[in-house]
């Protein structure tokens, strides 16, 4: 059995193709089911976001599974399979695990460190799980991937600093004003960035939103979308006196507010600080406003400077995150190696033989009273019992090894006989809910065991 991933992402496919292959709602899970229903694929999870569509498969025949997945994707997106091949990347076994873990850790994202992908991955796995398309291996693998994502987020600062103008503005507002609860936000003009910033501020608890426009009608549209109140520019002074945060993005050719005007207003505020962002080009707010005590003014260049610095910081954390991913891939590989049939049989034999020898040892004193011939007979008898008991399970396992879900039996065997030692499989570990195999008969395949190859066999990419 092998792990395979095929898919497209922002790195390999243009937006148009990604749109065609995007699988909204439960379509991703349905595609997973369609792949799973055939004879080739033992487990399947499909992940679809705006930046990637990826199919993860557990299969005995990697080539067939890859062709099947690409074919289905092409069919679903209405594109030519040959054309799709050019944009598709793939990875197998250890490389596939590494790819999944990197996706979960948001190392493969368009904006490295973004938090959404982890939730999307969880949802994709949950949907596949609910549809019965996952079993022992993918249950373990995807839960492990989610843990890797969490670990990277806690142990590195990869997702810590905002990398968009609007969220940088919100962070700065918090740096000046502390908690944003009940703060009054005044918006001048109605640019897209100011709307986004207001939404971010609202999400962080900001109170009243007031939108000021040249006319009430222009202000009302944005006010409606932001659940705010529209006012006219005539009321600007009164609104400025009450505002804690001012966001300006009008199309005015000159300054909308100059220093003298705001200095007068600040005098009546008992030095309550004001945070101002000027997103407009040309600027709306006199840069000298920043020199008034209690006024903190930032323009679009300041904010973009922070965005650039934060992006750079995130990239510096990538190396640390990659180390975590490598370490976790190693652990996952070790677990997968334990699912091979032949070593499991050997271990089972060893364990039972160990019990036999220990029992004979325990009876050492009593056996000493027997003659050598009698002791030989006891030895032969116990060995025969062990062999008889183990004969049928051994034969059955070897037969099952040819089937696609042999690893499920191996996993069960390891648990029943505690072949990893009790500590190796603590309660609550991922993979506990290994489902019993639902289909077995007539699916003989060339590869009998699940063998994670140490050398990544990437195809395409």
């Amino acid at each position, binding site marked *: 059995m092998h792990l395979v991933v095929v898919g497209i992402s922002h790195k390999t496919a243009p937006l148009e193709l990604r749109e065609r292959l995007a699988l909204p709602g439960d379509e991703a899970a349905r595609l997973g089911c369609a792949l799973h229903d055939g004879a080739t694929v033992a487990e399947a999870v499909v992940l679809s976001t705006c930046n990637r569509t990826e199919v993860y498969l557990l299969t005995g025949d990697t080539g067939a599974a890859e062709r099947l997945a690409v074919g289905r994707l092409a069919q679903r997106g209405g594109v030519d399979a040959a054309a799709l091949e050019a944009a598709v990347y793939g990875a197998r076994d250890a490389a596939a695990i590494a790819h999944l873990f990197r996706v979960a850790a948001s190392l493969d994202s368009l904006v490295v460190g973004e938090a959404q992908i982890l939730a999307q991955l969880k949802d994709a796995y949950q949907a596949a799980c609910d549809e019965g398309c996952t079993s022992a291996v993918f249950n373990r693998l995807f839960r492990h991937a989610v843990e890797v994502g969490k670990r990277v987020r806690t142990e590195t600062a990869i997702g810590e600093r905002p990398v968009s103008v609007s969220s940088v503005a919100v962070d700065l507002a918090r*740096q*000046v004003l502390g*908690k944003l609860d009940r703060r009054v936000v005044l918006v001048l003009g109605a640019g897209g960035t100011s709307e986004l910033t207001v939404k971010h501020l609202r999400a962080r608890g900001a109170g009243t939103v007031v939108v000021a426009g040249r006319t009430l009608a222009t202000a009302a549209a944005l006010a409606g979308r932001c659940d705010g109140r529209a006012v006219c520019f005539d009321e600007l002074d009164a609104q400025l006196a009450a505002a804690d945060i001012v966001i300006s993005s009008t199309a005015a050719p000159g300054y909308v507010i100059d220093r003298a005007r705001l200095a007068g207003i600040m005098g009546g505020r*008992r*030095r309550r600080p004001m945070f101002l962002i000027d997103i407009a080009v040309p600027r709306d707010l006199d840069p000298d406003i920043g020199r008034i005590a209690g006024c903190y003014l930032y323009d679009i260049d300041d904010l973009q400077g922070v965005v650039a*610095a*934060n992006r750079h910081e995130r990239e510096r954390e990538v190396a640390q995150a990659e180390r975590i991913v490598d370490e976790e891939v190693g652990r996952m590989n070790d677990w997968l190696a334990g699912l091979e049939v032949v070593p499991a049989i050997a271990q089972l034999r060893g364990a039972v033989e160990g019990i036999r020898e220990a029992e004979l040892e325990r009876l050492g004193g009593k056996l000493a009273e027997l003659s050598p011939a009698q002791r030989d007979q006891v030895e032969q008898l116990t060995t025969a019992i062990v062999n008889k008991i183990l004969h049928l399970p051994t034969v059955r396992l070897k037969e099952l090894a040819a089937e696609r879900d042999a690893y499920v039996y191996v996993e069960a065997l390891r648990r029943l006989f505690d072949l990893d030692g009790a500590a190796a499989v603590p309660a609550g570990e991922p993979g506990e809910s290994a489902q019993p195999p639902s289909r077995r008969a007539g699916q003989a395949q060339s590869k009998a065991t699940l063998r994670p190859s140490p050398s990544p066999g990437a195809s395409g990419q």
Partner: protein
Amino acid sequence: MAHVEVVVFWLGFLLYAGGLTFFVEFLFSRRELQDRLGLACVVAGWTLETVTLGLRWAQAGHFPVVGAYESLTTLSWAVVTVYLVLAWRTGVKALGLYVTAAVLLFLTIAGARYSPPLGLTTALRSDIVVIHVAVMFTALAAFLVAGGAALIYLVEDFELKRRHIRPVLGRLPALRTLDQLVGHAVLFGLPFLSMGIAAGVIRAAVYGGPHWWRDAVVLLAVAAWVIYAGAACGRLASGWSGRRSAWLAVAGLVCLLAIRLVAVPYLSGFHSWGR
């Protein structure tokens, strides 16, 4: 007993130093874990310093405030206590860096001037002296925190005004939070300072001779009181805040530190027991 006390004292010192290291690391590495480790070190160090003071008290037979070693150790303990209460109640970060640095300075001087317990002179055998010392230390601890918050405020305000938005800013508390902290700490410390000065004046009038008021400690304490009272009145009556309030808190702290680090050991006629 004395050996145990010294060992525990220096172990506590090392833990504070560890705390300082973690806080510095936190400022630049941006990992929450560092901040928590720093706080854990401070709590452990504080526990050991409490033990130190307990041992000293038992050995000397009186509240340990006589001589540089005892008084600075007790003061450090009070400062860390105020900081821990603040950290627990408000979750305000970055102050730990300043507090551990200040406390390490005090403890270095204390450790360097270690002396076996000194007996109480007649002038110190008085309930009013105990009250004077206890409230003065409480006031000093509060003003040290206010001064620290004010210093951080001034640095942060300077950077934000210059639009120098460096990552380290994200590790400092919000300007508004710091401003409130300064205000609250000053308002909290002022009544204690007033009580402490009153108690000191009563005692000095009895014991200090006719020119007690010309003493450097007394003059600096009154100067500090005027600054803090001005800051508190300005804040309550006219809403003084921001940079003005921060500068006043720093100025007051300079007076108080001058008392402890300059006037008491070198200038004062009284307050000089054991130096």
